Structures are given as structure tokens and as C-alpha cells.
């Protein structure tokens, strides 16, 4: 159970407070309701590049990191296809420094040319390090445009290509800031050794003077129902053949979301899971096999991926994956199997409460979903899922005509 208080400032900024007196630390987490899905298809990777620029100094404070480190704080941020999330942890007695820094960069950035030039380079190196210079690193750059044809999920957070980042201009940066970085598009969570009334006073002092800005109204083209099997083959300098199959699944707020999460657990969570035991241990077709969900806010993906044992044919490997998926469609999972994955989810949720930062991030994310208290209703939602639900969604999901398959082959197999 993660308790919280909640209030909204006059400019529309939502604030949640989680009091936890067991720690001497505090967390200030700000989620901006903007991700890669909100980008112009010709300027992809921008939400993430922008996240880097948020550390390049703000209108009244030339350096973001230095004053924070000086009071014993640390910070970081991440960008996904859906959101951009910034967080600070620091000794609770220095909490006001976090308010000072975060409010100034919500007010306005310094928009320094030097920072833009440097961060274009840094992000280009990040693109190379994580996506281009790694075996299988570009899988998602290939799989997304295969699975999505209309929706902005068809590109990855890092962007479609290096040139989009290299060509970003200060005009783009300013427009993006104005459109997305205002109090109405943000959710702030303050947690740790803090009191709600103190947080309220600090929020009113530092954040309330920031102009509300215009509310960004999202209106993204949604993906049409997929009606044909899609296949793509790539060859690369990798040592092993691999296969990635992506199926369409519903959006995050769909009531079946929890059933999909448990379905992926039955198939692939840990060494008691089905794919691990059948495909890796018994049939020895794969040296690595996984199933997971993308957990995106709009309609997402259910992915099965594996690396083949040398000498195994792609045809045989693929057939074996489908045989396991067919089983999910034709038979209900046993009571023991369902209880097992539910118990696991329950303990994951209890253990996640060990981390103050995780609690703060979760509150912000669930508030974005509509109500932070959904976080506390997660366990109940998982427990409600039945074996029949899992069979039903398996039938709705695992069909060739809604699948996108990427064969990733070694050069010897080309």
C-alpha cells in the first residue's frame, strides 16, 4: 500500500505527496506527458534529445547538475514512447533545492546553442552505443515499423535514423518546449521524509507562478486492425539466428491488460515457465527464449523472441513456438500454474515498495493513467484474472494474420 495526498495548483500542475518517515531522503519526480509518440514523423528522436537538453541550464540557473550535487543530490531521467520522466533524490532537509531547480526549467530553458550542439553529438553516440554497435541492437528499429504502419509507435524512442537527431534545430527545441513542457502537462510526486503541508507551501512558492501554458491535446492516428501476416528478414554480423514475433495487444487501460501480463508470465517468467522448459530444456531448440509485453499506453505488442541453437532450422524453431501458443488457445492453464504467476506478481509488488524512487515513479505513472490509487488496486486486478480469460485472449491474439515476424539471420545463413 502506497499512501499519498494530492492537490492541484492554480496553473494545473498536479502534485502528489507520499510521506515516508523511515528514510532521511526525499524524491522529487516529474512526469511530463510527452513521449516519442508525440513526435513529427520527420523529426523523430526529438522527445529524447529534448530530455538531454533539459540538463543544459535553465533561464535563471546556468547549470542544473552542479547545484544539485552541491547539496548531496543525484538526478536522472528517461524517455519512452509514451512519457518523459525526471527525478531527483536528495537529503530531505535540502528538498527546496529540488523545487528551485525543477521549477526553473519548467519555467524556461536557457536554450543554449552549445548545449544543443553537444547533446546532438552525445545522443548520436548513444544511438551508436545502444543500437548500432551491438549485436541485435537494431531489432526494435526494424520490428516497430513492421508491426505499426500508422501509429507513432512505428519508430523507437532514439529515433528512426541518426540524421533526424543531427538535423535538430533551436527552433524545433523552442517549439517542443512550448507545446509540451508546461504545468498542465506535468505530474509531480514528492516522496520521502517530507510533510504534505511543507510540500504544498514549496509547490505554491516555486511552481504556482509558472504560466499554465496551452494544454496539449493528443490526437494520434490509431493503428488499423492488422489482417495480414507480416514478415521481414535481415542479415547481420551476428553469431546466431534469432526470431522475433510481435502480436497486437490492447492499450494499457483495457481491462484485459492484466490477463496479458499474466499470459506472458505463464509463457516465460523464470525457469518454471512453459517456453523455457519446452523449447530450451526439452526440445533444445533455443538457447534464449522470452515472451513479454510492451506495456504501452496505446495498443501495444506481445512479443515472443528467441535465439536458435546452432544447427536448428528456422522453420522448426518457429513451428515449435507456434505449437506452444496453440496450446494456450486450446487448453486452459491449470489452477496451480495460474496461482503461481499470481503469487509472483503479488510479491513483486510488495518488494517494489522497498524503493522510495520506484514508489514515486509509480504514483506519477498511475496518476497519468487516471488515478494514482490504481497502483494500490493492481494486486486485486491481477487476482481477478481467470484461466478462461487467458485462453480467450490467447485466441484473440495468437493468429498469423495479426503477427509480425522478424527473422534475424547470421551472414552464413543469408
Amino acid at each position, binding site marked *: 500500500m502506497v499512501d499519498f495526498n494530492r492537490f492541484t495548483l492554480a496553473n494545473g500542475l498536479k502534485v502528489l505527496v507520499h510521506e515516508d518517515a523511515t528514510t532521511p531522503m526525499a524524491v522529487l519526480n516529474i512526469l511530463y506527458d510527452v513521449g516519442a509518440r508525440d513526435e513529427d514523423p520527420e523529426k523523430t528522436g526529438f522527445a529524447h534529445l529534448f530530455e538531454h537538453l533539459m540538463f543544459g541550464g535553465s533561464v535563471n540557473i546556468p547549470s542544473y547538475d*552542479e547545484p544539485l550535487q552541491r*547539496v548531496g543530490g543525484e538526478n536522472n531521467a528517461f524517455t519512452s514512447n509514451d512519457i518523459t520522466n525526471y527525478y531527483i533524490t536528495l537529503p530531505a532537509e535540502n528538498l527546496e533545492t529540488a*523545487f*528551485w531547480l525543477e521549477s526553473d526549467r519548467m519555467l524556461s530553458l536557457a536554450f543554449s546553442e552549445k548545449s544543443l550542439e*553537444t547533446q546532438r553529438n552525445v545522443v548520436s*553516440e548513444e544511438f551508436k552505443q545502444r543500437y548500432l554497435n551491438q549485436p541485435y541492437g537494431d531489432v526494435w528499429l526494424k520490428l516497430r515499423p513492421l508491426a505499426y504502419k500508422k501509429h507513432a509507435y512505428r519508430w523507437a524512442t532514439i529515433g528512426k535514423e541518426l540524421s533526424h537527431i543531427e538535423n535538430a534545430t533551436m527552433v524545433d527545441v523552442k517549439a517542443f518546449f512550448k507545446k509540451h513542457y508546461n504545468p498542465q502537462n506535468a505530474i509531480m510526486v514528492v516522496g520521502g521524509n517530507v510533510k504534505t503541508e511543507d510540500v504544498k507551501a514549496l509547490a505554491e512558492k516555486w511552481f504556482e507562478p509558472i504560466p499554465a501554458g496551452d494544454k496539449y491535446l493528443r490526437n494520434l492516428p490509431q493503428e488499423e486492425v492488422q489482417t495480414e501476416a507480416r514478415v521481414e528478414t535481415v542479415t547481420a554480423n*551476428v553469431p546466431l539466428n534469432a526470431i522475433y514475433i510481435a502480436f497486437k495487444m490492447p492499450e494499457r487501460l483495457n481491462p484485459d491488460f492484466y490477463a496479458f501480463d499474466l499470459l506472458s508470465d505463464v509463457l516465460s517468467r523464470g525457469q518454471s515457465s512453459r517456453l523455457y522448459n519446452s523449447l530450451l530444456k526439452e526440445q533444445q531448440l533455443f538457447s534464449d527464449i522470452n515472451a513479454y509485453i510492451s506495456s504501452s499506453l496505446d495498443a501495444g505488442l506481445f512479443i515472443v523472441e528467441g535465439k536458435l541453437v546452432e544447427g536448428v532450422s528456422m522453420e522448426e524453431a518457429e513451428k515449435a513456438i507456434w505449437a506452444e501458443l496453440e496450446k494456450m488457445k486450446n487448453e486452459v492453464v491449470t489452477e496451480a500454474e495460474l496461482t503461481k504467476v499470481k503469487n509472483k*506478481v503479488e*510479491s513483486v509488488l510488495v518488494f517494489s*515498495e522497498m524503493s522510495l524512487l520506484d514508489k514515486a515513479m509509480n504514483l506519477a505513472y498511475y496518476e497519468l493513467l487516471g488515478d494514482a490509487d490504481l497502483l494500490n488496486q493492481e494486486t486485486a486486478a491481477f487476482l481477478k484474472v481467470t484461466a478462461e480469460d487467458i485462453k480467450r485472449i490467447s485466441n484473440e491474439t495468437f493468429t498469423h494474420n495479426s503477427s509480425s515476424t522478424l527473422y534475424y539471420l547470421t551472414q552464413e545463413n543469408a
Partner: protein
Amino acid sequence: MLNRQQAPDFKQVSTINFIQAEESKLRNNTPVFTIYSGEQDLVRLEFIFSNVNWDLQKPLQAIAVSAMLNSGTAKRTAKEIAEQIDFYGAFFQTEYLQDQSSVTLYTLNKHLPAVLPIVKDVISNSQFPQHELDIYIQNQKQKLQVNLKKNDVLSRKEFAHALFGDTAYGVDIRAEHYDAVKRDDLVAYFKLAYAPNNCTIIASGKFEKESFELLNDVFGQDWESSAAVKNKFSFVQKQKEAIYKEKPEAIQSAIRIGKLAINRKHEDFAGLQILNTVLGGYFGSRLMANIREDKGYTYGIGSGISSLHDAGYFFIATEVGADVCADALKEIYKEVELIKNELISEEELNLVRNYMLGSMLGSLENVFSHADKFKNIYFAGLDYDYYQRYIQTVKTISAEELKQLANQYLSTDDFTEVIIGKK
């Protein structure tokens, strides 16, 4: 009127409280250290075994035993072990590190009585079935092939081997080592290493008297001792060495530079950690400020000091654009020379003091982190005074002392420099 240019007042962290470990012993004399917190109904139990009887002819013994520990006992198959642990929502992990192998159980308190006997079965009765071993070897060889395509992984392997040679710290594992793994060797190593006289148990969380009694009943008996001999290594500083492996297709080069240094047991360790923080140990460090934030050569660069049982080492590591590799190297060496030749300003030093104290406070996030702090000192033969001295050093060390440490420990004359990619 709000003055946004004026930073709010702040305080340096004054006190840091540690939840201290309490020692008790099982009937068979296995030490149990409890780090208690009653806030959540959960517990983490770590069974920590020293790595023993190092044999260069069988460098994978300890690694394979750790990885295959849950692959079957006389009573349970691998699948049954996983199913039973998972059924109770517990987490069972094995980990091999250079000095120790550990088995960790995370569980809600209510399930401890059910899962503890399974863990005991695994720790005292593992069988390493041949068919499981065959699968392990096949899949590990495949994973190794993938890893050997990563420049970063290659640079770590080359660097470790250059510093530590054919010891457990440096041995270069290749596919043929996997082919040579024999079931009998694993069984023999398991009997030696996973014995009560080679075990330390760390219990953190809501671990109360009745939990201890349960642990004592399960692990305090019916568990055979062994004649294991802890690994012991010694190293001498190498001559300067440059290792370059060209990868014609690389668009980034992995760089790893460093040398032997001191470990936690040495009185200069805290001072060297402060020096390292200034150079490359945090986001605002000199290496980050110069090579990422000013030049944009890399996504990240850092330095560190690693403390092993029989050695310590200093390293700088990064992945940089292949076209700027030579420039990046020049800047790295420039920063090392600078920290040796010029005093750190009071302003920078004060920032680093405050940052490190805040970071120490923040690293004690929950009871598990307190247990981790205890392990750091206990296995280095130190006590909680270590942390008081550390905090005192962070607060008071002078720029002159740091400059002296830089000259003593960071002379580049005998650096090992590894570059994988292009330069």
C-alpha cells in the same frame, strides 16, 4: 518577489545512521548476521560461500556450479525446484563473483517455512545431472559468442587478463573451457565449497527469533563440512602495456585504461575514492564534463576503484565514436595529468564532499542496502568504524592530500591501455 537566481539554503549531511548487524551462530557454527527491519513482511537470506581451491585447469568449476545449482537434487528436478519456489512467489538467485559465490532467497515471511527446505535441498544436495550440464554448456557457448561481438565486453576481458593473468580475477574464458567441463568436477567442487564451514549467512528484513529458529533447524544440521581452502592470489604491478584489437566495422571503440591499486583494507582507500569521484566517479566529474558534456565524444565515461579480496584496481572506461578515439584518449590522459599536477579548488572539493555524503545517505535506502554495507566491511575484515573514518575523510581531506594520492596511485607510466575498435 521570488528570486530564482538565488539558490535556497542547504545543509551538509551531518549524521548517517547504520543498522548494525547482529551476529549469532547456527548449531553447526555457521555465522548468521541479522540486519533487522520490521517495516515490511519480507526477508532476504544470503548464503555466501568463499571461492575455493582454484584450479587453472578447470577455470569454470565455480562458475558452472553456481549457475547450475538449481538444476536438480536427489529429490527434485530443475523444473520442480523452479515451480516450487515460484509457487510461493519467492525469488531464488545464484551469483558468482570473483571472490564469492552466493545463493540469495527473497521471500515474504509467511512463505519462509515452505521455501527454506527447498533452498536447503539445493545447497546441500545438488546433483548436476549430465543432460542439464549438456544444455548449460551448449547455451553458454552461444551466449559467449554473442558477448564476444561486444567491444565493451572484449575490453573488460582483455583488461582483466592483463592485470590479473590466469587467476580467478583474470582468466580469459573461451569456448573450449566450456567443452572441458566435467560433471564429476562440478560435484567435487560443490562438496568442497557449499559447506557450512565455508558459509556466511546474512539475513535482512523482518528476520525474528522464530525465523532464526527455523533457519537453525533446517541449516544447523544434516549438512556436511569440507576441507575447502580459500583462494589466495597475489599480484605485482605490470609494465606499461597497450592492447589494441582492431575491429574494422566498429563505429565506436571501447576504451579501458587503468592499473592495480589498493583495496578497501588500505588506509588510503577512502581518499582514493574521493579522488576518483572528482576524476570520473559521478555525473559532474571531470571526465564527463570534458569528454561528454564539452566534446560530445561519448554517451558516457567513468572511472572507478574496485576492491577485491586480494587486490584493488583503478580503471577508466568509455565507448567513444571511432573517429574521435584518438582525441578522446588524449583528453583522458590530460585529465589524469591535471589531477596530479594541480590542486583541486575548494569549490569543486566542497561540491564533491557534499555529493558523496548525500550519495552515502541515499545508498542506505532500505534494509537490504544496510546489509550490503555490512558485507563490504565484514568480508574485508573491517568493522563499522570504517564508515565513520570514511565520512570523516570525506569531510576533511585537503586538496594537498588528494594531489599526493594522485601522484602516488595514478602514475600513468605503468597504465594498461585497452582499445577495441578503431583508433
